[in-house]
């Protein structure tokens, strides 16, 4: 099991040669001045990320205050109908997509490598790219409120209200734009976090010793991989219907507005847990520290987290209880919605047990206050969650202020309060000076009381019949007093947040604060600098700083793994996914403009498309691809440096290909994303068939093209796979440039292009029009989904060829080729399945 011969002799007591720390500092230095945006270090971009998310929180909060002013008295005209409708849409969208998910991802970027004592995440530029795309896109989205361009369909944008007919103009497209960026950054973050938590743990940190936060981030990222593609597909369908009139949601042409609701909530409900689970796990990190005792029920919590992840995908229909779905199916989703309360209950009682077990008593610090406030608010939100899981009760309160109260209790209680606990608790990681505990108490009490005064009365407002998303209400409905109370509470809550911001500005000093001020047990409290920890420790328990009292000094003196930078660049240790035994050393890229420009041009591409300035948009799109290619060109360092010593007697390679490499893992995650997207499409196809079978070929649609067409497409697909398979055997020998792969790779890519073209042409010549029926739209969409993969394959294939011509690709140095061929095999599989569905299913049912 343990193939690290030195493990038994750790720590290595010999003093390290001088100059190593200086070299680490030079290699990991943060670029200064105008080059600051090129930074990739997780502790730097993590701060940008959290800062951006928090700024969006403030902006959306200000909008909430304006809305509360509008609602304070009946028949108010402060905002007016149209602006109010825009504002609640932007408020919801910003809070969910630009604040909550990114804030959680930001904490992952910020904290995860530190908890794992890794020098950085495995793909530093990828996270930086995602952050910049998100910052630019989010800023544009939020600013639309200033020029009357904001969407006004509510944050879940139900069609047909959001179709061109009822939402003309670009407003709704800006929503799709905003979502597009968060989709990009969420997927990028998920890849980063899955590979990071499974492959860059410190030696000895088996899965069973992972901090709860790392567990949660792993589950969080896997949930993103399954859930986000559903909303990616939904947004694609909506934009395609808005732009080209393909009728996915138009009932008269065989579409169904409920398809949107299924796809959106299949994403939307897990989204709540995507936000909540990491926040809860922050609580699971803070409580043991404040209680000075290990978490009680660690294993129960891990099982509860996994169970929540699973359950959360079986609940989406509870947002649709009032759509008229038959009672029998409702009862299944009702049961699942209630069952998800159990894992939350496990966590609550585990925290109570841990607090009870405290050595001494629980220390009532500001983080503890926020945790206790969270416990109260979240429990209440959970209880009302059980209530709305009951179908008949939901029929009454659905889309009323009761539900507004419920989800604010869950989201503010479940996410914002833990986030503030986190700010206070982990602040010393980014600031030399800590936040004031005295001010912190004021912040907490203002926020806690303000929140409850604002949202507790809303339960009653809803029961008295007030629907959500109303910009005004008539006098005499009996809602005025409660609404005024809510408005007062909202301002008290805002005062708490404002006080926090003042204290933040007052106390923030860039740098590392006091060492382990809370006397915590996990690795992020090791002494650290820009390079993270001086050496990467071997850990023997869940709370290494408690279990190994001398660890901090040993690590600081370089007596554990990788105390220096043997390749002369940025690097971190890769370990095995389960047992965390050292396997190799990744060489990681440093600061660069390429990914920043790629993000800028990607953002510009989507923005210009949104306002329908097509030619500049395409130019920006091409530039974005060029920047990506330049960025990726330098990533494959090759195996030339040979094995290096990371600890006495332990030599590890610095280059890895195949299933052990981090690149291979990230491609697999990406394929999972693509697979989820395609499954969402298959669901849509079958779902619309059940709704409107009369639009399929047995009904009004033209007959399928003759068998020759799909057979030709299938042959081309198989040919593509064969070409890449052959190419993998015919890569050039080390140091050579010629190999048959040079011809096979472009041939394979061309076969893929041909297959998609044949599929589209076949249906076109059969007379199928995508804008005539949902069936036609789905058929062309299947080809389109494969087409976008083929587009990526073509670029990657050209890249591979260029690498080979440049002498940077051979049968050993083959990362680029392997990644391309993985995508090719996946694409072939997906496209073959698509042919089977599109050409086979109508025969089965016809």
């Amino acid at each position, binding site marked *: 099991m343990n193939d690290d011969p030195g493990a038994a002799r750790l720590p290595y007591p010999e003093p390290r040669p001088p100059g190593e720390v200086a070299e680490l500092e030079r290699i990991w230095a943060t670029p200064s001045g105008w080059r600051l945006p090129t930074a990739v270090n997780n502790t730097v971009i993590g701060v940008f990320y959290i800062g951006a998310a928090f700024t969006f929180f403030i902006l959306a909060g200000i909008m909430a205050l304006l809305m509360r002013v509008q609602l304070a008295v009946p028949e108010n005209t402060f905002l007016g109908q149209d602006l109010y409708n825009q504002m609640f849409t932007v408020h919801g969208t910003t809070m969910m997509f630009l604040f909550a998910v990114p804030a959680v991802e930001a904490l992952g970027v910020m904290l995860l490598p530190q908890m794992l004592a890794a020098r950085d995440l495995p793909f530093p530029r990828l996270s930086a790219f995602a952050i910049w795309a998100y910052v630019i896109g989010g800023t544009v989205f939020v600013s639309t409120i200033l020029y009357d361009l904001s969407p006004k369909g509510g944050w879940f944008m139900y069609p047909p209200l959001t179709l061109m007919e009822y939402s003309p103009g670009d407003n709704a497209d800006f929503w799709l734009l905003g979502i597009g960026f968060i989709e990009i950054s969420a997927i990028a973050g998920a890849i980063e976090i899955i590979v990071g938590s499974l492959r860059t743990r410190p030696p000895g940190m088996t899965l069973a010793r992972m901090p709860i936060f790392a567990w949660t981030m792993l589950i969080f990222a896997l949930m993103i991989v399954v859930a986000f593609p559903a909303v990616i597909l939904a947004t694609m369908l909506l934009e395609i219907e808005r732009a080209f009139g393909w009728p996915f949601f138009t009932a008269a042409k065989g579409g169904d507005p409920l398809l949107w609701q299924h796809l959106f909530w299949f994403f939307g409900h897990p989204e709540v847990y995507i936000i909540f689970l990491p926040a809860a796990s922050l609580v699971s990190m803070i409580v043991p520290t404040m209680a000075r005792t290990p978490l009680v029920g660690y294993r129960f919590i891990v099982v509860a987290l996994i169970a929540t992840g699973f359950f959360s995908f079986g609940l989406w229909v509870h947002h649709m209880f*009032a759509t008229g779905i038959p009672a029998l199916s409702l009862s299944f989703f009702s049961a699942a919605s209630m069952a998800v309360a159990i894992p939350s209950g496990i966590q609550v009682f585990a925290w109570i047990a841990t607090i009870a077990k405290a050595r001494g008593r629980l220390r009532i610090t500001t983080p503890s206050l926020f945790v206790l406030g969270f416990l109260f608010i979240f429990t209440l939100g959970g209880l009302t969650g059980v209530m709305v899981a009951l*179908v008949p009760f939901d029929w009454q309160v659905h889309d009323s202020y009761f539900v507004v109260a419920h989800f604010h209790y869950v989201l503010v209680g479940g996410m914002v309060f833990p986030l503030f606990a986190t700010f206070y608790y982990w602040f010393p990681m980014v600031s030399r000076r800590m936040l004031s505990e005295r001010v912190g108490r004021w912040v907490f009490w203002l926020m806690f009381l303000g929140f409850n005064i604002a949202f507790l009365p809303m339960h009653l407002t809803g029961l008295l019949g007030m*629907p959500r998303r109303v910009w005004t*209400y008539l006098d005499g409905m009996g809602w005025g007093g409660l609404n005024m109370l809510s408005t007062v509470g909202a301002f008290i809550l805002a005062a708490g947040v404002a006080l926090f911001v003042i204290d933040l500005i007052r106390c923030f000093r860039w740098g590392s604060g006091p060492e382990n001020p809370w006397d915590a047990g996990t690795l992020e409290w090791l002494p650290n600098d820009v390079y993270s920890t001086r050496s990467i420790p071997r850990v023997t328990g869940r709370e290494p700083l408690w279990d190994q009292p001398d660890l901090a000094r040993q690590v600081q003196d370089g007596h554990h793994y990788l105390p220096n930078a043997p390749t002369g660049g940025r690097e971190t240790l890769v370990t095995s996914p389960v047992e965390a035994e050292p396997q190799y050393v990744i060489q990681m890229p440093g600061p660069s403009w390429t990914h920043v420009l790629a993000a800028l041009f990607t953002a510009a591409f989507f923005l210009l498309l949104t306002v329908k300035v097509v030619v500049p948009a395409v130019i920006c799109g091409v530039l974005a691809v060029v920047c990506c290619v330049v960025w990726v060109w330098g990533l494959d360092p090759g195996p030339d440096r040979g094995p290096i010593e990371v600890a006495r007697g332990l030599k590890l390679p610095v280059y890895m290909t195949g299933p052990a490499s981090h690149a291979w893992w990230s491609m697999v995650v990406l394929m999972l994303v693509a697979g989820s997207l395609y499954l969402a499409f298959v669901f849509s196809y079958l779902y619309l068939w059940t709704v409107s079978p009369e639009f399929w070929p047995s009904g009004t649609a033209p007959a399928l093209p003759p068998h020759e067409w799909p057979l030709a497409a299938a042959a081309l697909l198989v040919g593509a796979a064969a070409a890449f398979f052959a190419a993998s055997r015919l890569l050039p020998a080390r140091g050579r440039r010629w190999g048959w792969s040079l011809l096979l790779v472009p041939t394979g890519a061309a076969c893929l292009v041909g297959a998609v073209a044949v599929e589209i042409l076949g249906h076109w010549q059969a007379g199928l029009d995508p804008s005539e029926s949902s069936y036609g739209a789905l058929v062309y969409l299947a080809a389109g989904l494969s087409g976008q993969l083929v587009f990526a394959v073509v670029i990657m294939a050209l890249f591979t060829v260029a690498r080979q011509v440049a002498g940077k690709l051979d049968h050993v140095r083959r990362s680029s080729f392997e990644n391309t061929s993985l995508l090719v095999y996946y694409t072939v599989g997906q496209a073959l399945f698509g042919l089977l569905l599109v050409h086979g299913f109508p025969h089965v049912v016809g």
Partner: protein
Amino acid sequence: MSPVARCILLACLVLPLAGCEGVQSVLSPEGLSARRIALLAHVLFIGGAVILVGIVALTALSIYGGAGWRNRLASEKIVIGGGIVFPVVVLTALLVYGLAVTRVGGTDRAGPDALRIAVVGERWWWRVIYTDADGRRFESANEIRIPTGRPVELALTTADVIHSFWVPKLAGKLDMIPGRTNYQTVVAEVPGVSRGQCAEYCGGAHALMSFFVVAMPPDEFEAWLVREAGPAAAPGGAAASQGRQLFLRGGCGACHKVRGTPANGAIGPDLTHVGGRLSIAAATLETSPQAFARWIAENQHIKPENLMPPFRIFADDELDALATYLTSLR
């Protein structure tokens, strides 16, 4: 737990139980389904409050309790008992109870004795279509009259986007979705007026898309239905006659129907008996001559984005005449 928080908690418990009168309140049920749900709601509130207090108490004990309490709480047993066993038992019981209530308010079709009324959601008002004993269909708008004690099956559809039909005093809500017809069966247990409101955001003036449901004793209802099926009353008096002329000459008939007159529009609400309804503009204004006059001239101010253009072509006395005429359409 601070004293303030405790007060809030108490308020949460007591306020709903105090019973609130409200024309649109879940807590003042007058329909069979709504009453069952209100009972369920009270069970949930009391149970939820007890659990919340329990959690707060346990948390307080885990921090400030004596060694005995804290030892008892500090084990995995409490995680299993409180986190698994307790919720499984409680949730199973609730689920069964919930399913039983679901069947009462369900979306199954009503029996043959039910009265059938079609309701169409439109931006931003409600088209109501009755069918009389002879199978003739006639329209009304923004007000539904039903008999007490008899199941009424509402066929819910939409003319444009998704709306949601919600009369809290009678039953829960049910969406109106393009391409579908959803059926809701309500039983009003006592005579009375309930207010309903669109519960699914439908753009623009969603906030002002309400209506009334008037439950009447069966014999009164039957008499009303016969009157409602008939044509509009002939104008009595000079002002009303002038109003009728203005109505017809002003082009109102392009969108509105007044049965028994040439006004035969189908875009806006049927105004045949508009003067006899409790409200105009989808329960936004109480019916009165002043309300009609205001609506005709300033409707875009009262209800922005609605499809009716503001008619400022009428002089004040003409507006009065129109209002008199419309009020007389009982």
